[in-house]
């Protein structure tokens, strides 16, 4: 499983949406449950799944408007 596929799976679980309905281009406006708490929950799950740490300063620098934006946190 690629990290992009893992990201979609995590987003689907947190946002309570079928994975098939999500893509990297899915925006916050398209999913009701895609709020600020969901963003933190997704980052937290990503950190656990990929065994990485994302510092608060980096989160403040990255604007999450669509699912692909989470990948910027991993660079």
């Amino acid at each position, binding site marked *: 499983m690629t990290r992009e596929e893992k990201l979609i799976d995590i987003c689907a679980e947190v946002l309570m949406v079928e994975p098939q309905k999500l893509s990297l281009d899915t925006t916050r406006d398209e999913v009701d*449950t895609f*709020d*600020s*708490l969901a963003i*933190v*929950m997704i*980052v*937290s*799950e990503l*950190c*656990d799944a990929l065994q990485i*740490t*994302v*510092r*608060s300063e980096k*989160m*403040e620098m990255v604007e999450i408007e669509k699912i692909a934006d989470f990948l910027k946190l991993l660079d």
Partner: protein
Amino acid sequence: MTVHHIGYLVKSIDRASVKFFGELGYRNEGTTVYDEFRKINILFMVNGDYRIELIESAADDSMTGGLIKKLGVSPYHICYQVDSIEEAKVELEKQGYIMTAAPEAAPALDGRRVAFFYHRDIGLIELLEVKQ
């Protein structure tokens, strides 16, 4: 860390406080305070050693507007007292917590600073800075 209070999402502080007072033995600690930054109303109530913070959304774009839609009326965070939020943040981030709200003064807590953190295993916590 010492617990300061439990944060409790409510739809109406007036209605909830009547229930906490009447059936559950809590009394008001101060009066309802409007937090302009977070766009919420807050009332603290105490029952013995336990303090709860009733939080009511005051605008559609308030800090808790989305939360109450998602969680309903419910307790949703525990607030802990710390000497320094910055020092605690360093330690919490090492343990996998993510800061969800940066330190800001809280009008309902005499202007003392609070910050929120999230961990996937325990959800939201709040830190209240109580400098000695």
